[in-house]
């Protein structure tokens, strides 16, 4: 059985911007695959090439063993694509848009007659199906968008940043829905710059940065690979600088502690990387007590995907996001993308 999605050595530039430099992914049928990376990492461009909206400069993309470049119509039939921005016709009702979608996927009328009401039920759109989509809230629009993308029962559903800008309730509903889709056998590819989203949903993850895949595997593998546990410690709610620094020096001398970082953004909390051992937490508390320092809060956790990203790139995802702000010209990027080919 061929992989559901195979991307090999994908390369794509827009003008002078190398959006994707080298991306290779293999996605197995029936898994949820997460493409994680900061804004501007090349996630959307990868998705555009996969969904036949852009031509790769080089590299190979296959869906179920069919090349999307040589045989786009077959690939399009197997794909459902949910764009980051929900684009609906505000003048049409939800039901009319579903019928339009059914017709452009050539679903026979006698099938769509039953399936459209099913989708409306499934996404709980019943009260809104016959209202113009211009009157919908953000969450409703996203649900209609999901219904539209799923109407032709694609084998692979591709979602670009599925929960950006959604309220928390809709977000968790989307998560739940994606898990259930997977349970029903659909392959799901999501891009996200939310760590928790990928961590919570994805069976496997590729972390992408600057157009290159820098790590890939299951979330657990990735975390195990960088090793060590994390201890987050607060001496007080807001610890004075000098106290934090002396604690840092003291704790760094402990044999099982690999690194101590002061996080000034969080009231000078201390982030420790420690060798996994059962009594690490106790030993740290003990040492603090001996040094006459109090403990406001302390917790131990496994490394997060952010730590994986940090280990690979030397910066956190948040830093990358902030660095990207102001350096990207979204208008220009959009223009370049619209020039096409």
């Amino acid at each position, binding site marked *: 059985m061929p992989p559901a999605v195979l991307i090999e050595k994908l390369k794509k530039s827009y003008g002078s911007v190398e959006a994707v430099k080298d991306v290779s992914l293999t996605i197995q049928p029936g898994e949820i695959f997460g493409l994680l990376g900061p804004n501007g990492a090349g996630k959307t461009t990868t998705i555009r090439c996969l969904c036949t*909206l*852009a031509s790769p400069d080089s590299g190979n993309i296959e869906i179920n063993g069919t090349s999307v470049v040589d045989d786009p119509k077959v690939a399009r039939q197997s794909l459902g694509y949910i764009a980051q921005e929900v684009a609906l016709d505000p003048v049409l009702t939800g039901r009319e848009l579903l019928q339009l979608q059914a017709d452009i996927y050539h679903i026979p009328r006698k099938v769509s007659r039953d399936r459209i009401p099913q989708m409306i039920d499934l*996404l709980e759109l019943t009260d809104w199906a016959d209202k113009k989509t211009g009157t919908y809230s953000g969450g409703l629009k996203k649900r209609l968008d999901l219904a539209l993308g799923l109407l032709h029962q694609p084998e692979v559903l591709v979602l670009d940043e599925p929960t950006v800008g959604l309220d928390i309730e809709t977000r968790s*509903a989307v998560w739940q829905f994606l898990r259930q889709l997977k349970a029903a056998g659909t392959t799901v590819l999501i891009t996200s710059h939310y760590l928790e989203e990928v961590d919570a949903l994805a069976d496997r993850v590729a972390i992408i940065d600057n157009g290159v895949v820098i790590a890939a595997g299951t979330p657990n593998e990735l975390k195990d690979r960088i090793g060590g546990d994390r201890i987050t410690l607060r001496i007080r709610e807001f610890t004075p600088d000098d106290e934090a620094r002396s604690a840092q020096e003291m704790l760094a001398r402990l044999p099982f502690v690999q690194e101590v970082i002061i996080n000034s953004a969080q009231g000078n909390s201390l982030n420790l990387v420690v060798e996994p051992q059962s009594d690490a937490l106790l030993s740290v508390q003990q040492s603090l007590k001996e040094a006459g320092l109090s403990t406001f809060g302390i917790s131990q956790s496994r490394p997060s995907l952010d730590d994986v990203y940090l280990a690979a790139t030397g910066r956190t995802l948040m830093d990358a996001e902030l660095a990207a702000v102001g350096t990207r010209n979204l208008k220009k990027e959009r223009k370049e993308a619209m020039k096409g080919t």
Partner: protein
Amino acid sequence: MSTTLTPKSSPIDSPDLRAWKSASGGGDTSQPPGLLSGAFLQETLAMTRRLFIQLQRRPSTLVAGVIQPLIWLFLFGALFQNVPQGLFGESSNYGQFLAAGIIVFTAFGGALNAGLPVMFDREFGFLNRFLVAPLASRYSIVVASAIFIAALSIVQTAAVITLSAFLGAGWPDPLGLALVVLILLTLVLGVTALSLGLTFALPGHIELIAVIFVTNLPLLFASTALVPLDFMPGWLQVVASLNPLTYAIEPIRYLYLHPDWSLGSVVLQSPWGSISLGVCLAVLIGFCAIALLAIQPLLRRRIA
């Protein structure tokens, strides 16, 4: 609002989604359908229906579209009302002469603008729905727009013909009217194709509007819409005789004046000889075919 999709009531915990998934399959994946297929018809009609629903719920386009040519006819007709008899060929008055020009120019303008809504769809991302779908052919986007514009043009034409009749222009005979419709359909399909080709080729609506702007009026003035060919300086006669609009205007004008028309009737004295009604039709059909073929590579482009 109680409509939020809450996980606990989400229906897919039950085997619903599985059942839904295993229900009869999606579209036919075995053989990608072509241009002459039920699939092409289905997608074209669906896109056309969308345009008509939009028109029905936002009728201002229709209202303005009918009023505008009538104002043209009325004001422009009045402007040259006192022109001496015989200056405008066989027409008994300028209003009669002008009607054919207004009919063609209105249809042409509508078709030239056909790309704009598609460009907005493209900019809002809605066009991506069509581009990621396994369309039998992207010509369905062109044909849907052309059907819509053609229907609009026929309503506009009916209004222009009726007003001209009241202004004393008379009526073409029924078969002549059918020929008028055929001429307009051919012109609209060809120009719509070019407009959508531009929509796929240009980067955005600003550029598209700029191109429409510099094409629209010059093509009007360099045609026989407002004055007869022998009224123009020699060089403009050459330009007007190359302008496809002239080949739509002259037959319609002729049909107005000659109930005894035939395909062999000479309707235009171009600098390189007399041109019959049949030749005009052939030129229009040729123009339409070339336009449709020329945009094929643009439709195949991958744009986002």
